[in-house]
């Protein structure tokens, strides 16, 4: 893929602290790209370097083939939606949206037309004369989005754009963002600490930790094939057991795991050697619990009802815990706390991790 935004060996240090540590990412045109990680992982600093608010200690930022590393923020074809929205309190909604266009000295008529266009798209037409203080959280968020979008940036940068919204509004806004991004065909880069949000909106996700990128991939890729235990546990839930000796039959591996207290199944991969230390990871929804049969034996210790599914925590004989999720298909629940169960999964359900 031709990189539209290209980040090459970018680093940023504040004194002794390295916020961004030699990161390289290529982002394609029209992508909805997420920078995901816990707070303090450097994702905001990275975004601010793309916007031009921070000068990198080393490395290069390219935008549409042009190097912009030292171009100040006001001359970059990127626009940002701020976490606090940063709406100008002394200006009306309409003037907030027009601010950037006026700065570009566009003709009055064009400004008016573009503002009303974007206002219509974001259902702000009725609010144009209000002041930001008179708006609800959701409305402010849309104004901030409109103000950035109206400049038709090459890249729209969103810094935790939905952090201030409550849960229901957030889910709705996520879909709205995706719809807008498709419609406009723009490149979006979003910073978030919410893995669910990242999975919902993005075409690709970069998972960051301590200034480094651990994995980049589509939501399905990073969820299904995490590269490390950290990624597996950060994105959704995962049961992880250290693996021991493995016996191969065809494409299947039968792995002895002392931690799990028995043998578990997985598929053989070329990437992971079973001779050194390695781990087996399996998602809770892939775990089957049966009252009889084979698999890891354990006792149901906790049960919680989550509407769309039932969540069980099983104490295995080895002492380790295992989480299992049964999707709610309307069937009667036949397990209760204290029951002895056997946990198993299909070989394809498990992943081998070297780290």
């Amino acid at each position, binding site marked *: 893929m031709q990189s539209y935004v290209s980040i090459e060996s970018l680093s940023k240090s504040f004194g002794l602290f390295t916020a961004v540590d030699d990161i390289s990412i290529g982002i394609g045109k029209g992508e909805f790209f997420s920078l995901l990680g816990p707070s303090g992982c450097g994702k905001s600093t990275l975004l601010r370097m793309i916007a031009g608010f921070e000068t990198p200690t080393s490395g290069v930022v390219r935008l549409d083939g042009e190097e912009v590393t030292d171009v100040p*923020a006001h001359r970059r074809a990127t*626009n940002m939606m701020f976490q606090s929205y940063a709406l*100008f309190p002394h200006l009306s909604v309409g003037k907030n949206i027009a601010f950037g266009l006026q700065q570009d000295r566009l003709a009055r008529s064009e400004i008016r037309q573009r503002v009303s266009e974007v206002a219509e798209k974001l259902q702000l037409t009725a609010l144009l004369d209000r002041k930001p203080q008179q708006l609800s959280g959701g409305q402010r968020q849309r104004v901030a989005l409109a103000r950035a979008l109206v400049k038709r940036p090459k890249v729209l940068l969103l810094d935790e754009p939905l952090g201030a919204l409550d849960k229901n509004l957030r889910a709705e806004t996520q879909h709205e963002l995706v719809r807008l991004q498709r419609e406009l065909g723009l490149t979006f880069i979003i910073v978030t600490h919410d893995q669910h949000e990242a999975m919902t909106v993005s075409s690709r996700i970069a998972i960051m930790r301590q200034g480094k990128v651990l994995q980049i991939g589509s939501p399905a890729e990073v969820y299904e094939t995490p590269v490390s235990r950290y990624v597996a546990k950060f994105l959704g839930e995962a049961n992880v057991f250290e693996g021991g000796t493995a016996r191969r039959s065809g494409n299947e591996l039968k792995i002895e795991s002392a931690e799990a207290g028995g043998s578990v199944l997985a598929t053989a991969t070329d990437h992971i050697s079973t001779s050194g230390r390695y781990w087996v990871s399996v998602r809770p929804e892939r775990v089957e619990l049966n009252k009889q049969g084979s698999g890891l034996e354990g006792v149901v210790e906790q049960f919680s009802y989550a509407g769309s599914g039932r969540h069980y925590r099983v104490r295995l004989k080895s002492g380790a815990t295992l989480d299992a999720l049964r999707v709610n298909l309307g069937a009667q629940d036949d397990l209760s706390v204290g029951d002895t169960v056997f946990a198993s999964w299909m070989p394809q359900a498990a992943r081998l991790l070297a780290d």
Partner: protein
Amino acid sequence: MPQPSLFNRLSIFAGLTFLYLPIVVLVVYSFNASRLVTVWGGFSAQWYTAAISNQSMVEGAKVSFLVAAISATFATALGSLAAIVAVRIRRFRGHHIFNGMLVAPMVMPEVVMGVSMLLMFVTLGIDRGPVTITLAHATFTMCFAAVVMQSRLAELDPSLEEAARDLGCPPFLAFIKVAVPNMAPAFVSAWLLSFTLSLDDLVLSSFTTGPGASTLPMKVYSQIKFGVTPEVNAISTIILGVVVFGLVTSRIVSRPSAKSNLAV
């Protein structure tokens, strides 16, 4: 929100009574028909007539207002610059001395400042009069103006200016277009604070004035030295009225936060 307890209510009541009772007494006795300050001789506005026809007082008031208006304008401009320097630039060669000079006049006894300014004007051979009073007042009140501006500038969301830069403004223009309009209420409070401080001042004016130029407080002071008269009460009431009117108006216009009125 818990209700204030009885003790709290009593503290507020006692404190405010202490602050206001003497002022109320002063105002009430300005309407006293009797020349004796402590004997109530019936209602009369005669002392007001006397006060506003007192040519010397009116002259003093003119000087005071002029000095206060000009020095407050200088003080607001200088104080704002100083606040920008202190909040935004922060570290530069000699910033410790700068911050010290910005704080010291707020606590420095007025007599000390008065003496030093007088000596400077004399040494430099500058004729003393309204101009020197204005310079002295601007210096002393700019520090108060700076405090007001500083607290407003510090609570301004830095991402506002970043947003303006992001939308195409160079940094300086972003400051002018976004930070300055949002500091407008602080400009008003800073100017009003400087204005009243200047209007009030007796000591600094006495040291820095020359022959002929007397401010209103200087005239009131020399009257008070001779004793308490109902006419002084009337003049005081007029001054208080002007200040209270200005304060109430500015509160309605700008709703300054309690912090930015005297943020320490």
